[in-house]
């Protein structure tokens, strides 16, 4: 009762918001809070992008999947033992334990080991490693890339980045059949541009894409073959000598009959 009476005669703390506004320090961000969606589920996926962006490293978090919802805690996640996945741990700068990284591979990685052995597990020979893996499997399996990343110490993102940049490396099995059109200056003068337009129209595809009704792909030829005519179109390494910019339409129609799936 004494407290009530004391407070009663003190000045009022209430601010008539929004007519009057309290004096807030310019750097005050209020209470940090996670956003929820309309059903009340937390939208945070513990992707760590905010933690990474935070310049003074005051944000950290952890999360577990409980009945389809993520329960997110503030603070170092290790104390809850709940980092969710390998990539999240990598992004937050934690080392990944071997148990998390070592997964059973569904393919035989013998060829990968041989390729790694040849260059002494040196990540600077990444192109040679990837090329010999592709020679062995016909494409680059994801398990092989993971194994390469773990054995050489190169980040998976860098292995993947190298593999996606160079056009002769592929992630798709069975991409061995191609219709390649040369786009050197000579071929362009001889009408390669019109041939490309005709072929992509007749095959219903875009230049550089697979042809929907077959296992062929319409793409650019890396380099003009010696003694080959212009415009040069190559199917599976075989130059097509009877094609010119004038008969491209009928040629494409004949081809459609031969390769229909």
């Amino acid at each position, binding site marked *: 009762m004494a407290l009530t009476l004391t407070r009663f005669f003190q000045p009022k703390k209430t601010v008539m918001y929004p007519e009057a506004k309290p004096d807030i320090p310019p750097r005050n961000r209020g209470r940090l809070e996670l956003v929820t969606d309309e059903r009340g589920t937390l939208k945070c996926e513990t992707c760590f992008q905010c933690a990474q962006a935070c310049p003074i490293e005051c944000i950290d978090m952890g999360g577990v999947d409980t009945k389809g919802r993520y329960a997110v805690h503030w603070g170092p996640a290790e104390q809850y033992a709940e980092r969710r996945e390998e990539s999240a741990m990598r992004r937050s700068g934690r080392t990944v334990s071997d148990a998390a990284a070592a997964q059973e591979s569904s393919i035989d990685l013998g060829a990968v080991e041989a390729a790694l052995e040849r260059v002494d597990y040196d990540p600077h020979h990444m192109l040679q*490693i990837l090329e010999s893996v592709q020679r062995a499997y016909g494409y680059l399996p994801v398990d092989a890339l993971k194994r390469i990343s773990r054995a050489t110490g190169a980040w998976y993102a860098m292995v993947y980045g190298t593999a996606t*940049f*160079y*056009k*002769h490396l592929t992630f798709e099995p069975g991409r061995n059949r191609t219709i390649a059109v040369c786009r*050197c*200056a*000579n071929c362009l*003068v001889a009408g390669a541009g019109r041939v490309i337009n005709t072929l992509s129209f007749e095959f219903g595809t875009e230049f550089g894409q697979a042809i929907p009704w077959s296992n062929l792909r319409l793409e650019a030829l890396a*380099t003009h073959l010696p003694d080959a005519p212009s415009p040069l179109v190559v199917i599976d390494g075989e130059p097509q000598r009877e094609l010119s910019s004038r008969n491209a339409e009928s040629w494409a129609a004949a081809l459609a009959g031969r390769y229909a799936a």
Partner: protein
Amino acid sequence: MTPPATPWSALHAALAAGGAATAQTLIDAGLRGRGGGGFLTGEKWRTTASSESDRRYAVANAYESDPAVFANRLLVEKNALGVVEGLAIAALSVGAREAFIGIRAEYSDAIRALEAVVASAERDGILGPNVVGSGRELLIRVVPLQGSSMIGEETVLLKALAGKRGQPEQTPPYPSSVGYLGKPTAVNNVATLAAVPWILSNGAAAFRQIGDPAEPGTVLVQVSGSVANAGVLEVPTGTPLAEILAVAGGAASGATIKALLVGGPSGGFVPTQLLASTPYSGAGLATVGAHIGSGALLAVDGSVSIPELAAMLTRWCADEACGKTIPCRIGTRRLAEIGQRFVDGLAGPDDGERLHALAADVADSALCAHERLTPSPLLTGMRYFKQEFYPAGVAQSGGAVAGRSS
């Protein structure tokens, strides 16, 4: 292009003279990089040698980016010895113990020729752990590369050699201070390196006598298109374009040449009236909007539509862009689309202006020569063949969107 008369004598001379003196000889000779940059080769080596580092590298660039250009392949096949000797001299002058030759994997004959030269030199004790008894070590490795036409750019070549994604780096710092694995690296085109043994054997003064005094020496040009004798020629720098065309036999029978495309897919069109007055040299070509580039000359005859060819070339450049800078990834594609609108007769009244503004932005933001030069075919086409971009009866500015009726 002729192999050295007395193999490895230039290497002995360079070892006796020392790295600094060799670099000075090349500066006196005025040898400039043949890869397009046009830096003084001796200056480059001197920077590499003087950069503070525990190890240095030397790299020969034999990766020809442009499709169907064979000048360097021919050079390596005919004169693998000169290239390897030049690279060995470069490596010893800058203090490198390891050197690489980056070459297109498709050039199997050239790769075999290089590997044979390196293997026999190692067997004879010329290369290897003890270079001609000097106690210095030099290992040369031939690295076949493929998969992207950007590898011809020097910083991309270094990335590809290190097994990374092939995207260029901002320069400076140049590879001569930060190169392969972050170490100082001398990167030279094979055509530059092939000239080095000749200079050391015949003297800097003799080299200065050849060609344009500002950038002396000879260059390889590949002439193709509608000429009587297509092929690769070795000409002194500064030779007028008309003379090169005459050596190649002039126009093919029945054809009238209306322009030369100088410098490959990102080169510039030079119209016939300028051929006699334009010398084939870096400075001379720059004034007409072209460049030496890969050394390709394409004779374009009257049957070819310049806008169509220019748009297709720009499209090729856009497809080959590595995507590191956004003006290159998206801007070049828009350039190709604007060019295509001119081809289809759908160009709006502002498209010419838009093309020039976008081309200026693309060139200004360039990390590497690919982006800087991509607008050249469209720009030079616009400059010299305006009537083909704007056929008669189409308004150039103002009014409704103009369309070609036929």
